[in-house]
């Protein structure tokens, strides 16, 4: 193909947000039996990587389809994109069969982000359930990189079982820091597990933070977020300082296909991060 046609491609791709940007799988890491992390680099080296914690991309597997996956890497690193994905459907299963060097389509980043800019001096309580830890990891990197701006930082993480704990090495490293409280629990233990067994809500009840000065960030299955939010509220963290990441079916991620509607909001542009008081009337309501 001639240079002129290629230039035309680049221009058209850049202007049409429904056309994926091509990325290459640079590294592939198996996290658990059904969860893996992809590290992606752009095929076109002029493409700049930039995102805010909480945002997501639409990832396209050739001929199979597209799926919305949160960005789970360090926002300060601009060399590559990281996505932790669980094999639950047709596209993610096909993605799980890709190899290092394969091409994948990327559209994004889309959505809003976890609030960290105006929260200096606050305690942060981060409550993660299952794969919900992935969209929270970027904000944890940020909080630790800017540690002096915040007071207590607490991470409470509930996983299904010890084998399904994500980012094990990283969690162990974080737990070793004196200025970060990390508590992990599993729904079911296994032989050799000597840590907490049970859901993450009791951890919220006794975690070391000052509710009147706390910002809470929650991500996980909706029912887990509901109970965690209730527990936080019981301790006195107001809904105005509680943030959740919602998930809905997505096709365009641009606000016009209509699939991601959640009450009057579009998860792709009004979310995925929502302040709890703003969705209080619909959160937890069935079939909204």
């Amino acid at each position, binding site marked *: 193909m001639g240079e002129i046609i290629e230039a035309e491609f680049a221009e058209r791709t850049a202007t049409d947000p429904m056309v994926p940007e091509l990325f290459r799988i640079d590294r592939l890491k198996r996290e658990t039996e059904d969860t893996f992390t992809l590290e992606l680099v752009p095929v076109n080296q002029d493409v700049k990587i930039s995102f805010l914690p909480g945002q997501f991309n639409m990832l396209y597997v050739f*001929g199979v389809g597209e799926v919305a996956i949160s960005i789970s890497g360090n926002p300060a690193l601009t060399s590559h994109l990281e996505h932790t994905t669980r094999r639950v459907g047709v596209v993610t299963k096909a993605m799980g069969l890709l190899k290092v060097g394969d091409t994948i389509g990327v559209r994004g980043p889309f959505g809003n982000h976890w609030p960290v800019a105006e929260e200096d001096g606050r305690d942060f309580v981060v409550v993660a359930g299952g794969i919900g830890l992935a969209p929270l990891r970027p904000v944890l990197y940020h909080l630790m990189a800017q540690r002096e701006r915040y007071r207590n930082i607490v991470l409470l993480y509930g996983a299904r079982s010890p084998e399904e704990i994500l980012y094990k090495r990283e969690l162990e490293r974080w737990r070793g820091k004196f200025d970060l409280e990390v508590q992990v629990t599993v729904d079911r233990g296994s032989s050799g597990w000597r840590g907490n067994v049970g859901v993450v809500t009791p951890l919220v009840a006794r975690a070391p933070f000052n509710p009147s000065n706390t910002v809470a960030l929650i991500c996980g299955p909706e029912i887990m977020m509901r109970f965690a939010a209730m527990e936080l509220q019981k301790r006195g963290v107001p809904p105005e300082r509680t943030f959740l990441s919602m998930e809905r079916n997505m096709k365009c991620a641009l606000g016009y296909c209509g*699939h991601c509607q959640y009450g009057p909001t579009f998860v792709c542009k009004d979310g995925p991060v929502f302040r709890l008081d703003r969705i209080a009337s619909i959160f937890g309501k069935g079939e909204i």
Partner: protein
Amino acid sequence: MTPRAPARDAYVLLAPAQLDLLIKTLVRQGYEVTGPTIRDGAIVYDRVCSAEDLPKGWTDEQQGGTYRLKSRHDQALFGYNVGPHAWKKFLFPAASRLWKAHRINGHFQILPEEQASTKRAFLGVRACELQAIRLQDKVFLEGPSADAIYKSRRKDVLIIAVNCTQAGGTCFCDSMATGPQVSTGYDLALTEVVDERQHYLVVHIGTNPGAKILSEIPTQPAEKTEIAVAHALVEEAAGHMGRSLNTTGLRDVLYRNAESPRWDAVVARCLSCANCTSVCPTCFCSTVEDLTDLTGQQAERIRKWDSCFATDFSYIHGGSVRATPRSKFRQWMMHKLAYWIDQFGTSGCVGCGRCITWCPVGIDITEEARAIRDSESAVTESV
């Protein structure tokens, strides 16, 4: 001395023969003219090449779940209301290829689809439909990024609107403040006056492009009396609407009654057939299909119309968020009359009545809204 061409804001008179000439002139100038025409027992929007293609002497009779064509006792060209087609068909096509891709080993290349630029003219756009186009402009052009397909098709469309001089059995544009008088957003607006003695069209020139195209054919200025007759007909239509909808505080009424038993009552009839979303001129939901050929080396992405009633519309891993017909119907109606206001600052309903006409069981959005509103006062009265 050349006669002065009519200017913007002027009123001009056209005889039916001159309308015919106008259409042919547009065609000759390379416009793809789309207008009302009869096909399969209904008045639909399709290519027209002359006034002969219009449903001359026909009208439509519409009620809940009913649409019939009937012949008129005159030769009116626009003596009907709206059929199953909406102008979204041409601005937001039912199926569009977004891009193609081809694979070589583990790599692939993407080839975006070129948007053809065609000169288009829409003939016969009713007031409710003008508002519907404005609403879809908000959705497709005013979001985080404008939709390329809608943008290229919407650009430079010549809009020839028609003021309704009769209201349909399911019409309620009056309640929605969207008609029957067209207000803005047109290049030319026609009002047809027809009785035993005369047949003419009063044309209001809305824009300079409208004035320009009109200058290609011979016209004469409209008399004050002729304009007055035209206005009176439209005003009378406003008083004969088949339906009405009380929009006062409707958004909040619906929010308060999201768990009303009325939803169960209506959904006992709803078939989730998605006709309503298909004929609605403001419904904008779409889906994408990613396809490959048999070799697996060529792929493409197609965007298609979708409906919130479709089975997997709200599917996320594990199941659909809205799995029951009740939740789907509620989503459709609450989106149209309540969520739209939060999303785009205005109701999503333009009062065209298509959803009532084309619902196979005749579910009536105005009746449902009334029943939910009434259910509130019933409760307070019994306390």
